[in-house]
């Protein structure tokens, strides 16, 4: 995968625009709006499943851009990247291609919580994503701004049920039709940019604000509830202006571990990797923040921002008198910029400069100033708002670029989505990424992939598929979103996963690749074959270890260094011995070369399996229970308020508001009593057998579920 040669960017753009000239009137199965992390994964996944897919982005050359920090993965997030890769997504391989500093976080805390992470070269990442999309069959990329989302009037037989028919681009009279549309518009939904006391519409600096038509359709025509969130990004620092000798050097891992299960090494050679630097804030930083509060309107508003990625303003205000970490991260192999992680801020540019210079290593630092203005501003319509934006932008751009700024944006309350990420009230409309209230590249990519899969399956008349929280972090993410909703930007943590010791980064391929090929259809047969080979080898190796059942005295003779306890087990197996803290598979293989040496390439995975096995066994029962509940789906058209079942008004209102899609999701809702669950189950069981409605989507689903329904059981 890493050996392929990327086509030069220029030729890619030519090819795309050539395509663009004659696509406008076609019909597609799936249209993806937005070319960020969610959009690119969604488009690639939809095409892999077999749908004719169109990706529409405002600017083709920013597809795959890293608009905030130049890094991928981390604790919790790395798990998501591994899972996206296991489902044949793009970002893991892109990370291996673009990474310039690889490290596994939490190395000392146990393999279940290892966090694979990489600093990325922005340009290489973008190039890889763009070339990957270009070489994906059935995928077309089009530059344009979506003016309108086309939906039908609600079906009188099914009140509230709209259906998506396509989109209309700005400056185009003809609509482009599609069975599914995926919106991945990020922070652009009614987005406003904040810096100092100035505000302007937009979702990212340098880009035009998205059309008001889209938010109008979502809110007014489809009646979707929205909320408002905020985020921010730090200024970029000129590397030469920083005195790096005053910062702590943080080298990468000496052996760079790739994200992708397909890769054995990364593109960047281990010795060529770039370091990161660590510095700390000083009391001066706190002083500058406090002095400039009156100039900072973003921080004064009470829109919810992320608690775990706060601006420097909220950090020093909430935890005064401390010094906070600031990481200086490389932006690329040849880039002359540094990204100051932890210094996201929204004050006026001159105050920003004053603030960063309070940090010793940056006492002479300069904020990056670009040479030329981006051309996007000339094509804006000159309404009142955009004029203001234009002036502000030129003010920023004239003196500082790229300064830190804040963004406030609308998100669609994700409890209005199904676990397939489809808007419940609108057939064929899918949402993914920040529009659902999440933050982070990996969270967006994970949703994008799953929305892409389901949008394609919807368009191709295949039943929807869901990932359970018992089998993946992606399942945890989607379940948390659709059944609990968000009150602040949602980020993945390992502590959100109940079955953390089972959902490990090392076994993501066993958990998802096989299912992804056999049930979902988003995994190539090449990757599938590889995963099958891995699974079979692991099974053989585990069987070999189990069959090594020897008496303690023989173990001691073969492996003199291991601390054997006599009493515990009469005949310990190889699995038991491998669980010991200081026994590695390598040492076992050298003691028993005849039966274990064929499996040396899996030595690390086998060691991890051995350690976690007893705990996974304990969790299995709980996992099975949840899966049984999740296999009981609740029809989306139940009228909970008038259901002839004994439920309290409070429970009815919760159910009506959230409309859980499975019994499992219903049991996790706050305020739902065990009794209510039993009544629901009873109702669903009996009506489910009687009614069978002629509906192209539901019929498939029902037939699929009949055998399951029979062996479902009640929650404990």
């Amino acid at each position: 995968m890493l050996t392929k040669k990327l086509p030069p960017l220029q030729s890619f753009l030519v090819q795309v625009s050539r395509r663009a000239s004659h696509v406008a009137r076609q019909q597609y199965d799936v249209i993806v709006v937005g070319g960020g992390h969610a959009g690119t994964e969604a488009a690639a996944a939809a095409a892999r499943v077999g749908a004719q897919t169109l990706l529409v982005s405002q600017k083709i050359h920013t597809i795959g851009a890293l608009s905030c920090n130049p890094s991928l993965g981390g604790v919790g997030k790395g798990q998501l990247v591994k899972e996206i890769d296991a489902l044949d997504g793009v970002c893991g391989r892109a990370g291996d291609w673009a990474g310039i500093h690889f490290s596994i976080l939490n190395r000392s805390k146990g393999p279940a919580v290892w966090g694979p992470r990489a600093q990325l070269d922005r340009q290489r990442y973008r190039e890889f994503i763009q070339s990957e999309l270009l070489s994906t069959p059935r995928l077309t990329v089009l530059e344009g701004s979506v003016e309108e989302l086309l939906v039908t009037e609600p079906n009188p037989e099914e009140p509230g049920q709209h259906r998506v028919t396509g989109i209309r681009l700005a400056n185009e009279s003809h609509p482009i039709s599609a069975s599914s549309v995926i919106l991945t518009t990020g922070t652009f939904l009614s987005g406003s940019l904040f810096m100092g006391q100035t505000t302007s519409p937009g979702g990212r600096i340098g880009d035009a604000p998205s059309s008001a038509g889209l938010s109008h359709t979502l809110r007014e025509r489809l009646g979707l509830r929205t909320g408002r969130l905020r985020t921010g990004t730090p200024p970029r620092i000129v590397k030469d202006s920083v005195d790096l000798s005053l910062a702590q050097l943080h080298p990468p891992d000496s052996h760079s571990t790739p994200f992708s299960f397909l890769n054995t090494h990364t593109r960047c050679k281990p010795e060529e990797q770039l370091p990161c630097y660590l510095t700390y804030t000083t009391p001066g930083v706190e002083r500058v923040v406090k002095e400039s509060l009156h100039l900072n309107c973003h921080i004064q508003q009470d829109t919810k921002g992320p608690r775990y990625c706060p601006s420097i303003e909220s950090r020093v205000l909430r935890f005064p008198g401390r010094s906070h970490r600031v990481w200086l991260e490389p932006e690329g192999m040849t880039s002359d910029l540094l990204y100051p992680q932890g210094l996201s801020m929204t004050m006026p540019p001159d105050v920003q400069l004053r603030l960063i210079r309070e940090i010793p290593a940056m006492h002479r630092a300069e904020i990056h100033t670009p040479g030329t203005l981006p051309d996007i501003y000339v094509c804006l319509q000159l309404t009142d708002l955009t004029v203001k934006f234009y002036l502000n932008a030129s003010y920023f751009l004239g003196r500082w670029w790229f300064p830190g700024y804040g963004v406030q944006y609308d998100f669609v309350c994700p409890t209005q989505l199904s676990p397939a990420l489809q808007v419940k009230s609108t057939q064929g409309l899918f949402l993914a990424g920040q529009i659902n209230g999440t933050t982070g590249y990996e969270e967006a990519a994970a949703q994008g992939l799953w929305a892409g899969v389901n949008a394609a399956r919807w368009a191709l008349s295949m039943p929807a598929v869901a990932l359970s929280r018992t089998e993946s972090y992606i399942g945890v993410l989607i379940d948390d979103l659709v059944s609990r909703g968000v009150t602040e930007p949602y980020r993945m943590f390992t502590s959100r996963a109940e079955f953390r010791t089972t959902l490990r980064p090392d076994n993501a391929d066993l958990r998802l690749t096989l299912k992804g090929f056999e049930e979902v259809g988003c995994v190539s047969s090449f990757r599938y074959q590889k995963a099958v080979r891995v699974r079979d080898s692991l099974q053989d190796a585990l069987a070999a270890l189990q069959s090594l059942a020897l008496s303690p005295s023989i173990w001691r003779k073969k492996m003199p260094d291991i601390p054997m306890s006599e009493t515990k087990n009469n005949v310990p197996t190889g699995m038991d011995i491998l669980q010991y803290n200081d026994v590695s598979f390598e040492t076992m293989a050298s003691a028993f070369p005849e039966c274990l040496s064929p499996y040396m390439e899996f030595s690390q995975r086998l060691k991890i399996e051995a350690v976690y096995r007893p705990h996974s066994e304990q969790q299995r029962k709980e996992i099975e229970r949840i899966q049984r509940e999740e296999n009981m789906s609740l029809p989306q058209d139940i009228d909970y308020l008038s259901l002839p079942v004994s439920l309290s008004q409070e429970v009815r209102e919760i159910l009506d508001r959230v409309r859980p899609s499975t019994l499992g999701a219903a049991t996790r809702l706050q305020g739902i009593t065990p009794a209510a669950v039993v009544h629901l189950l009873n109702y669903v069981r009996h009506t489910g057998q009687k009614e069978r409605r002629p509906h192209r989507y539901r019929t498939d689903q029902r037939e699929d579920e009949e055998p399951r329904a029979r062996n479902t059981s009640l929650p404990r």
Partner: protein
Amino acid sequence: MQPSVYHGVWRAAVHTLRTRGTPPCRLLSTAPLADAETIFALSSGHGRCGVAVVRTSGPASATALKHMAGLTRNLPPPRTALLRSITHPQSKEVLDRGLVLWFPAPHSFTGEDCVEFHIHGGPAVITAVLQALGSVAGMRPADAGEFTRRAFQAGKLGLTEVEGLGDLIHAETEAQRRQALRQMSGELGRLYQDWSHRLKRCLAHVEAFIDFSEDELIEDGVLNQVDSSVCDLQAEMERHLKDERRGERLRSGVQVVIAGATNAGKSSLLNTLCQRPAAIVSPIAGTTRDVVETALDIGGFPILLSDTAGLRDSPDLVEREGVRRARERVEQADLTLVVVDCAQLSSAAQQAAAFIRGHLTSVLPTQEQPETVFPTDRFLLVLNKSDLLPEEQKQKLDRELRCVSGLPPVCLISCHTNEGLQDFLTVLHSSVKTLCGDPLSGAPTLTQARHRAHLQQCFAALAQYQRYRDMDMALAAEGVRLALTSLGRITGRVGAEEILDIIFKDFCIGK
């Protein structure tokens, strides 16, 4: 759906092993236990009874039967009563002498292996047997309605029974909730809450260490703090589990609370019922300020009757506290007698009903404010001072109020003349009888056994933290998670968001 590929690996590994004919490994021998836990509970009602029935269901039932009935070799013939000495499986101490019955699967109520112990009905015996069962490996106290649910799973219930299941579980969970509330407001409750609070902090700190310490400034001392907290908790739990003294005597019996406005005659009702002047009675409003408790026997069922301060807003500090206590008691009560001075009622039935509704709403605990239906089975309406009404109005009121739907049962009495008292006792008796049919209400022994089992699990899980602390933080954290889950079954569930809240409150997380 396939459980997960990962488990497939294990199944395949086990399969290979079997075919190769190697001796059975641990994996195989523990498999049945992992499939289903065995549950036990007191199945007979609470109250004065000669025989109590304790039931178990699940794979460990046979082990429990063998160990506790001294059946070393064979199990008794199915479905045949056998008189045995019932002993503690570890200490071999004889707990009681009673009948045991063995119902092997699938011919049992739940479709699983079941055992019934018919023992003497005294609380000491019941407690001892329940605690003995809890000490058998793989056994735990049943959750509300769990026997019925297992029966439902096994297809052992008919359609009508299934339809009643939801209501049954509702009743049981409600009874448990009230029972738990009663205990949680005492010394014991404060202790468990404190442990839960400390465990939450431990977990939050461990999770912060896992999720954030690579990028953020999590002080090095965080884990040391957790270590010492876990040690302290372990020591305290161990002491608590060993302590044979009861920290507090748990109030036994159906909890009946008298509540209402001042001067409605609540204390007179108490005195009338217990036939002695247990509470001071005077014409001055606000005479009763504290809760007056007295144990009674109504038709053979034990009840604990509490008289409370009249509900009104008072500037008096002592009275305000009395009203707070009164409201707390109503919340914990199995049955509330709402006393109304019937002289205050309008002679028109509709207006009287409206007045009563308003009155009930003011007495009801806020969380149970009626949605559409009134929880009529938990309230009795006592219209006192009937002697002050003219005869015809009395009859009219009585007749018409009975026709108003949505009101709890109404009794018109006079504590002064004892008029209507007999009818009232009949109504009270039938309510108490219904409540006693529910084995959970007012049975502190069962709650104690349950608490004990959960505390033991919690204690064991903390040992897992200690074991993995220096090897694998994910597994160590798993131990704290398990501990908190076990304790959470006493004090209430703790969700992931709550842990994240503590993390963000205690640490400055910036990545």
